[in-house]
C-alpha cells in the first residue's frame, strides 16, 4: 500500500463523493457503468410471461433486474434490429435475480425471457428515443467500466482463494508453504489495490506496513504475517492474525466487487498502481522482510494494463497516438521486468543492483507520465 494513510482516505472519500454525486444527479450517469435509479427496469420472468416495468425509454444505460419467478432456469436477452444481441444474462435459476446493464441507442429493441433457455422466447418491445451521440459516448464509457469491473470481480475472488490457502498454511504451522504462498496471495491484491483503497479503513488493516501503524495501534495483516514468517520466524501464535486477515480480505473483496466506478476512476487507478510501484516497490519498502517486491511490482503493472485494456476502445477513438505511447511504454516496462524472472517467480529485491533499479525506475517514469493523463482523457464528452 501507499505509505501515507491520509492520502488513501482522501482518495476513498473522493471516490465515494463522486459516486454519490452521480447517483444523485439522476439523469446522466456519465460512464459510470451502472445506471441511475430511474434507469433500472424490473423484469419478472415466469414460465409463460416476461413483464418489464418500463418499455418507453430515452437513450442511455439501462439495468434490467431480472427475477425468475418461474419453475425453469431462464435467460434474459435484449435484442436489437435483426435480432442482434445487445446484451444477455444466462442461467438464472428459479427464485434467483440477476442484473444486466446495456447501453441503448434510439431504436426498437426486444426484451426477451427464455424459460428453459430454448426457443425464441417471450418478447416485449422496447422503444428508445433521444440523442444517440451522447448515448454512444455513455455506452462506450459504460462498457469500459463494465469490463474493468469484471476484472475486479475475478481478482477479488482469486484474492479470497489464495489468501485462504496462505492463512491455512500459517495456521498449520507450515512456514515453507506459507512463504511460498505469501507473494502469490498478494498478487490479486496488488492488481486491484486502487479499488480496495476506496475502502480506506480496511486497506491499512490488511496491507499496512509496520512503520505505517500509528503510535499505540496494532500491526495487522499481510505484513504482520510476513514479519512472523521471515523476521521473527515464529508462526506458532499467528493463527488468530491469519483468521483476521482472511475475514478482512473477504469483506474488502465483496466491497470491491460492488464498488461504483467511473471510467476516469479506472484510468486514475492505473496511474495509482504506477505510483505504488514508484514509491514502495522500487525502494523495497513494500515487502521489507520477504523482499518479494517484484511479485507486487509485476501485479501492479498487470493491473494497470488491464485497466487500459478496458479503456482501450475509448482511448483508441479519442487519441490513438496516445494509446500507442502507452502500449510502447507498457512493453518497455514488461521487457525490462522480464529480465528479473527467476523460475516461476522473480528475483528478490535484494538481488537487484542499483543499475537494475535505475533502469526499472526509468521505464516506470516513462509509463507513469502518460498514464497520469488517462483519467482526463476518458471523461464524458458531454
Amino acid at each position, binding site marked *: 500500500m501507499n505509505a501515507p494513510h491520509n492520502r488513501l482516505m482522501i482518495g476513498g472519500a473522493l471516490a465515494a463523493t463522486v459516486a454519490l454525486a452521480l447517483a444523485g444527479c439522476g439523469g446522466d450517469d456519465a460512464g459510470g457503468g451502472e445506471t441511475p435509479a430511474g434507469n433500472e427496469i424490473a423484469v419478472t420472468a415466469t414460465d409463460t410471461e416476461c413483464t418489464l416495468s418500463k418499455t418507453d425509454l430515452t437513450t442511455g444505460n439501462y439495468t434490467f433486474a431480472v427475477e425468475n419467478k418461474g419453475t425453469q432456469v431462464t435467460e434474459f436477452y435484449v435484442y436489437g434490429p435483426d435480432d442482434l444481441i445487445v446484451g444477455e444474462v444466462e442461467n438464472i435459476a428459479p427464485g434467483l435475480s440477476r442484473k444486466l446493464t446495456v447501453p441503448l441507442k434510439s431504436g426498437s429493441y426486444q426484451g426477451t425471457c427464455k424459460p428453459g433457455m430454448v426457443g425464441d422466447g417471450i418478447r416485449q418491445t422496447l422503444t428508445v428515443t433521444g440523442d444517440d451521440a451522447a448515448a454512444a459516448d455513455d455506452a462506450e464509457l459504460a462498457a469500459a467500466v463494465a469490463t474493468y469491473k469484471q476484472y475486479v470481480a475475478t481478482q477479488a475472488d482469486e484474492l479470497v482463494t489464495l489468501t485462504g490457502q496462505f492463512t491455512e498454511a500459517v495456521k498449520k504451522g507450515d512456514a515453507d508453504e506459507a512463504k511460498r504462498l505469501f507473494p502469490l496471495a498478494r498478487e490479486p491484491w496488488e492488481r486491484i489495490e486502487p479499488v480496495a483503497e476506496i475502502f480506506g479503513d480496511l486497506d491499512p488493516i490488511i496491507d499496512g506496513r509496520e512503520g505505517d501503524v500509528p503510535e499505540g495501534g496494532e500491526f495487522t495483516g499481510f505484513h504482520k504475517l510476513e514479519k512472523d514468517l521471515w523476521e521473527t520466524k515464529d508462526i506458532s501464535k499467528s493463527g488468530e492474525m491469519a483468521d483476521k486477515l482472511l475475514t478482512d480480505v473477504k469483506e474488502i473483496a465483496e466491497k470491491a466487487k460492488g464498488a461504483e466506478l467511473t471510467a476516469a476512476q479506472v484510468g486514475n487507478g492505473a496511474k495509482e498502481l504506477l505510483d505504488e510501484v514508484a514509491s514502495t516497490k522500487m525502494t523495497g519498502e513494500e515487502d521489507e522482510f520477504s523482499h518479494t517486491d517484484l511479485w507486487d511490482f509485476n501485479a501492479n503493472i498487470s493491473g494497470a494494463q488491464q485497466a487500459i485494456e478496458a479503456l482501450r476502445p475509448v482511448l483508441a477513438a479519442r487519441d490513438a497516438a496516445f494509446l500507442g505511447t502507452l502500449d510502447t511504454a507498457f512493453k518497455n516496462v514488461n521487457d525490462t521486468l522480464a529480465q528479473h524472472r527467476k523460475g516461476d517467480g522473480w528475483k528478490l529485491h535484494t538481488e537487484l543492483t542499483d543499475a537494475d533499479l*535505475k533502469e526499472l525506475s526509468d521505464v516506470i517514469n516513462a509509463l507513469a507520465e502518460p498514464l497520469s493523463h488517462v483519467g482526463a*482523457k476518458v471523461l464524458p464528452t458531454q
Partner: protein
Amino acid sequence: MSSSTDQSGLSRRAMLGVVGGAGVAVGVAGASIAYGPQGTAHAADVDGPIEFYGEHQAGIVTPAQDRLHFAAFDLITESRDDLVALLRAWSEAAAQMTAGRPAGATGAVDGHPAAPPDDTGEALDLPPGGLTLTIGFGPSLFVDAEGRDRFGLADRKPEALAELPHFVGDALRPEISDGDLCVQACAYDPQVAVHAIRNLARIGFGKVSVRWSQLGFGRTSATSREQTTPRNMMGFKDGTNNLKAEDTALLGEHVWVPEGEGPAWMAGGSYVVTRRIRMTIETWDRTPLGEQETIIGRTKGSGAPLGGVKEFDELDFGKAGADGTPAIPMQAHVRLAHHSTTNGARMLRRGYNFTDGSDGLGRLDAGLFFIAYQRDPRTGFVPVQLNLASDVLNEYIRHVGSGLFACPPGVKGPGGFWGEGLFG
C-alpha cells in the same frame, strides 16, 4: 531580490495572461537586461527576464546569476526522432520559462482539473528571475562507450569534444560524471532554477533519465565588470582574472566557436567543462592564513595578488618578495593557472559554490562546481588543468565529477530548437 513581485508586475501567472510571446515579454519588462547581437549584457536585473533566443545561447556570457541547478541526462531512447522531439519540446518550454511563463500549453493552473497540470507550479508568482537555460551535448551522444553511432550523428562529432585526459589527483565517480546531454539552469532565485530543471526532466521522461544533477548556492565567478568578485568556499575571491562579457574580442578568441572551425553546426557555440571539486574544508580551515595566501597567490582580504595592492592589479610573476623569492610562489595556484604559463589558454569561468549537506563523518560535503566555457577544451581547460598537477592547492581538493559538453549556438527564434543545425 531588489524588488518584489508586485512592484515588477512580472509574476508568472500574470504574464501568462498578459504576455503573448517572448518578444513581447522583453518589452513588458521595462528594467530587463538588453542584449546586443554578441550576447553582451548590461547591468544585472535580478527579477527581469533574459532573452532566450539569439545568436549565442544565454547563460554563458550572461552576468553570472547567483544560483545554479545543473543536470546531466542520459538518453534512454534509441530513436533519433525521439531525440529531435525532445529538443523541440525542451526549447519551447525553455523559451516559456525563461520569459517567466509556466511550461506547457495550459501551465500550472489553467488545465483541466482532472488532468495533472502541465507545469509543476512552484514558480508561480515568482518573477522570471534572470533564468537562463543552456544546453550541451556530451561525447556519448555521438558515439557511446561501445563505439556505436547511436543517432546517426557520429560524423558530426566535433574533434574538440575529445575525451578529457586523466589529470593527476582525479578521483572521478562515473555516476556523477559525463552524460549525453546537460542543461545548466541559472537564476537569481534558486526555486526558479530548480523549477526549470524539474519541468525539463518531466517533459523528458521516457526519452531521457537524469544521470546526475548539482545545485549551486552561490556564484564563484564574475563574468561582467559590473559584478563584484564573489568568494569561494575557501574564503578567497574567485574569478578576478576571468574573461568578462565586456571583453568582446577576447570572447571571440577564447569562448565562441568561429565559423569554419569544426562542424558547421557548432559555429557560434562553445564547449563547457564541468568539474565537481570537493574541498577538504576542515583541513583547509586549519591552515595558517599566510600559507593559505601563498597557496593561492593572492591575499585573502582584498584579493590583491601577492606583491600587489588592489584586487585587479596585474599579476607580476617576476616580482620578488621580502626574502628574495618570488612574491607569487612558483607553485601558487594563480601562477599555474595563468594564461602566461599555459600557452595562452583562457576560459570563461562560471562556477558555483555547493554543499550537499555533510558526508556522514561530520564533514561538510562542499566545494566548487567548476564550470568553464571555451572555444576548444584542448587549448582551454586541458592545458590549464595539466599545468595544475603541481598545484599545492591539490592537497585540499578532489575532482570527483567531470563533464564535457558541446553547447550549440543559440536558438534563432520561435519554431527553432536547440541543436537544430546538428540534425539539418
